[in-house]
């Protein structure tokens, strides 16, 4: 009897815990997006074999704009993790305000001898464009696996830092590639 009660308690506790986690981690509800059509059509459970549709140049640009966000955070992460790395490296993925923003922020890290440990991850990037040159990309940034520590190795991350936030970026298509040109740091919940 006692064992059954413990089992019930455990199940109920897990259910509540999962519900709480889901409340925060629920992915954005699927809706019509410009890039949804560009995704490769794959079917995991259907009877037909996996099919891949060739992307049009416009669809490929949307995909590249989305991938630019992943690359952007990878380079920022690396520069934040390695204080010896030149901040000029940010110019390979960012321009204009976004470049100035992260050069300034990471210079602040270095001034205060802060260093990143771990990596962020980008999920659910969705790009739209009106003119094929400037792309608005929304993406969820997950920083739950990264910490920022001071010279003594003590975390300086504030307690209420959101683990996941959705940010909106402007990505520019340039002859040299796709660059994030605006990153205003204005986040909102990923399931908003």
């Amino acid at each position: 009897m006692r064992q059954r009660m413990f089992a019930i308690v455990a199940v109920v506790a897990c259910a509540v815990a999962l519900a709480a986690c889901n409340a925060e981690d629920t992915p954005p509800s699927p809706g019509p997006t410009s890039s949804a059509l560009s995704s490769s059509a794959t079917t995991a459970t259907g009877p037909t074999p996996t099919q891949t549709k060739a992307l049009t140049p416009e669809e490929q640009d949307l995909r590249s704009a989305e991938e630019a966000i992943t690359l952007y955070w990878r380079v920022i992460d690396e520069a934040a993790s390695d204080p010896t790395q030149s901040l000029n490296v940010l110019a390979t993925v960012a321009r204009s305000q976004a470049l100035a923003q992260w050069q300034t922020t990471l210079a602040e890290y270095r001034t205060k001898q802060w260093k990143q440990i771990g990596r962020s991850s980008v999920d659910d990037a969705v790009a739209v464009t009106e003119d094929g040159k400037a792309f608005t990309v929304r993406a969820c940034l997950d920083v739950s696996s990264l910490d920022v520590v001071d010279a003594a190795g003590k975390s300086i991350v504030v307690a209420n830092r959101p683990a996941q936030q959705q940010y909106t970026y402007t990505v520019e298509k340039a002859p040299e590639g796709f660059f994030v040109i605006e990153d205003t740091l204005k986040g909102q919940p990923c399931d908003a």
Partner: protein
Amino acid sequence: MRRVIATMVLIFGVVLASAATAIAAPPISCPPGQAPDPKTGTCTISVTTPPNPGTPGEPGTSAGRGGGGSAPAAKPVCRYTLSSPAKEVPCSSEQGWWVQSRQCYAKVASPQPAASDPVWEGRTEGAVYDCYRPAVGPGGFIVAQFWSASPPGVGAPPDPRTLAQQAVAVMNLRAVRIGMVPEPRPGRVGLVGLPVWMWAQDPDSTTWGPVTRTASAAGFTVTATATVTKVVWAMGDGEAVVCRTPGTPYEDRFGMKPSPDCGHTYVRQGKHQVRATSYWQVDWSGMGQSGSIPLSFSDTALVTIGEAQVLTQ
């Protein structure tokens, strides 16, 4: 049984409390001009997009804040807002001029990065600047680089190219006044096969140079000298004559001789629209830099060419 229920209630309470904490965590609030850093949750300066960051009166400087356009210019105050606590810093130092939006001192990088360096952001104009950040403790300054179309920073020196253009503006440069024989006016007709003389009528400093002017701002001076390098005469018959001198004015004593330095011969009769385009080169220097500005000005004239008929009996 009571212990079981108590344990259940305790676990429930802990789980609910943690869930509530996760959901109800207060949002991060930052002062104006700052935004939460996604990585740390701390407030970092929010960089806006001024086309040329660092001009006096930009957000964050005291100068120009809240004032009308007619208010006298206040002395700019430069603040290092990322330091703890924020502090006032000199608006210029050996490391350059304070750029409020980037929180660093900036000056032209020397040498400039290669044109292929991404720090140029794909641009070909402007310059790349070193960004020197005051550092905590010994360690001096931390350097990053950025591109800017013009010198950034509070109280930064003017762009020498802009000063050079201001110097050019007061030179009053213009096209040559067309001098020609046959004369380009009604009633005057030249002949096919006879030499045409072209020259710059009364060349002076404004139509041929050289002319030198100086422009100054904020204690910086640029000197520019303008000179015509050539005049291209489009003769209206498909031919173009390049003259590197003002030409020689025709006189009756020259008779049927061709111009020694700037002439042409028409092979078809008709009215020809002649366009003389003078090409200027403006060389400027100052503020440790130098450069060249190409300019061109045109003037036109209509010349009539006829054909001599020879009658034989």
